């Protein structure tokens, strides 16, 4: 017989929980090593071929090398299962970091390019009779505020009442249909909303080329209402039933219970939802391009004539530059910066409301 007893003396006592694992620092060391190797290789290539240093290529190449090295080393030391686990872990982290690249690049370029014309003149002048330098976006900012304000005025009552219907009254097929189609409406392409507003108003006014601000507000409220419904519905649902029952027990009618108990309890969440909905539609370009049109002059009247808005201002400054392309681009970037700042401010405001004013439901 060739069978022999195991030879414990050569391996010593093995703890199966820690044996054959890579040490904790190993992935970081491999990452640093891979980037160093990739950086070195690219430096040599650059020295021989000339040209700028391709830092993006070096990082990408180094990361790929890191994944391969980690997988191979882990496969040799820890076996296939751990190796696959490590590979997927690093891929998942990489996916997150890849998504950050466009965000950082976007913020960087919008800030860097927008700051050139981010001056008082930009906020105090319109584009009337401006062909070269100077000019501003006052008419566009006014238009954006008017149209978005009007859209908010339309969609908040409709959206909030619908949410109340769904949570407090609605039962049966009608409520289910409304819920389903509200969800479907969140996916309507914005340009279709613009086309609808155009088709609607051009038919009822008989003007085949109609352009006015109120049409833009209608288009935006078509996009905004479903968002308001969904967020308000969520907020009304989390109001505890005990509060409603306490009110009913005191003889308060249902409509007063909703107005005086349910809505005040959830008002912070509803405000957050409405603010986020405003932030979503304030940057919409396509429907306003279709039905509100564009102009270089101030227009305070929602019901007459074309009205400029900030997103459309960005688009027209980019798409129809005059003889001096750079000044038009600078204005486009400055308007883009303004728009991004407005949206970020609205988002921040919404989160702050949610944090500080929501009722403390935990015990």
């Amino acid at each position: 017989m060739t069978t022999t007893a195991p030879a414990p003396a050569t391996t010593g006592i093995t703890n199966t929980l820690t044996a054959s694992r890579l040490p904790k620092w190993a992935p970081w060391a491999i990452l640093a090593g891979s980037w160093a190797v990739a950086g070195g290789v690219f430096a040599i290539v650059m020295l021989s071929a000339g040209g700028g240093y391709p830092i993006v290529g070096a990082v990408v190449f180094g990361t790929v090398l890191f994944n391969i090295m980690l997988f191979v080393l882990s496969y040799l030391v820890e076996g296939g299962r751990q190796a696959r686990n490590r590979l997927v872990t690093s891929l998942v982290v990489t996916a997150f970091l890849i998504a950050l690249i466009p965000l950082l690049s976007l913020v960087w370029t919008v800030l860097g390019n927008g700051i050139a014309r981010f001056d008082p003149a930009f906020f105090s002048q319109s584009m009337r009779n401006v062909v070269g330098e100077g000019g501003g976006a006052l008419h566009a900012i006014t238009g954006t505020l008017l149209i978005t304000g009007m859209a908010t005025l339309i969609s908040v009552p409709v959206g909030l009442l619908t949410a109340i219907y769904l949570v407090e009254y609605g039962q049966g097929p009608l409520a289910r249909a409304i819920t389903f189609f509200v969800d479907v409406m969140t996916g309507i392409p914005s340009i279709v909303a613009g086309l609808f507003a155009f088709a609607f108003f051009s038919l009822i006014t008989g003007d085949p080329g109609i352009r006015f601000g109120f049409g833009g507000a209608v288009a935006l409220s078509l996009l905004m209402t479903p968002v308001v419904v969904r967020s308000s519905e969520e907020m009304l649902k989390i109001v505890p039933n005990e509060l409603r029952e306490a009110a009913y027990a005191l003889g308060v009618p249902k409509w007063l219970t909703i107005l005086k108990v349910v809505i005040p309890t959830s008002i912070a969440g509803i405000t957050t939802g409405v603010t986020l909905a405003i932030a979503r539609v304030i940057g919409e370009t396509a429907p306003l391009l279709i039905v509100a049109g564009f102009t270089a002059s101030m227009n305070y009247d929602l019901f007459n004539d074309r009205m400029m808005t900030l997103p459309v201002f960005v688009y027209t400054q980019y798409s129809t530059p005059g003889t001096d392309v750079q000044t038009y681009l600078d204005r486009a970037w400055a308007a883009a910066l303004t728009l991004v700042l407005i949206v970020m401010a609205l988002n921040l405001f919404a989160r702050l409301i949610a944090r500080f004013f929501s009722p403390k439901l935990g015990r």
Partner: protein
Amino acid sequence: MTTAIPRAKVRPADRIFSGSTLFAGVLILVALAAVALFLIVQSIPALVADPAELEGSPTSFWAYVAPLAFGTVWAAALALLFAFPLSIGIALFISHYAPRRIAQGLGYIIDLLAAVPSVVFGLWGIKVLAPFLTPFYDWLVSNFGWFPLFAPPVSGTGRTVLTVAVVLAVMIIPIITALSREIFLQTPRLHEEAALALGATRLEMIQIAVLPFGRAGIISAAMLGLGRALGETMVVAMVLSPAVVISFVLTSSTNPSTIAGNIALKFPDAYGVGVNALVATGLILFIITLVINSIARFIVNRRKAFSGAN
């Protein structure tokens, strides 16, 4: 003798209030029906008109729509191809890999991508991404020109369907991520712990507990992302250099335009039956996205607890 249960007095104010909430709910359904109705009414002139009056004098209205419909689906499908694996990875990272304490903050950061207006994405795509990708396209076409997708000649400006698809992918990543993150977080805790207790690695736990639980949700998340990519307008209008072709080539300067992008480019100067033709293409886009969204919502609604809007 039975005692009648005392009924609550019906107050007029109650009637008015519940009636007005019902009115608002029905108004939303009416609005959706009105969208379809008015688009159809405005499209009919284009459908019955002599095709020679349409732009480019196509043989029929459908020959006019075909390249646009192809471009719409092609660009959106490419965007989904890029965005889907990344989004699932990000969602898994936030739900199962990142440290608990910072996971929510990381979620907000991804949501910020969704907050950036599309026109800013368009400006970024044409001024930053397209020049950045141009040398890469040159290399791709000179080395892989034999492959049909990269057939020469290369675009000199980077305004290709591939650039558009990358920007669209960036825009739909937050949508797919948000929904699949919600789904992954709903995996029953006990399933996960049972898998781990049997000695599964984290990857195996995700394979046997998380992914099977969320499969339907992941599919509908991808479809909602696809719906958004189909309807995205400004990026296509600003970045793409369009042509009336049906072509799969990713890196050339003659790209099929999309329905939404074409409307944004042509509508401001359109007149007469041209306006009706553009509205008709919009109607087709509306129907496509409505069908895709309805299927996705139908799948999601079978698990009631989540929706993409929050």
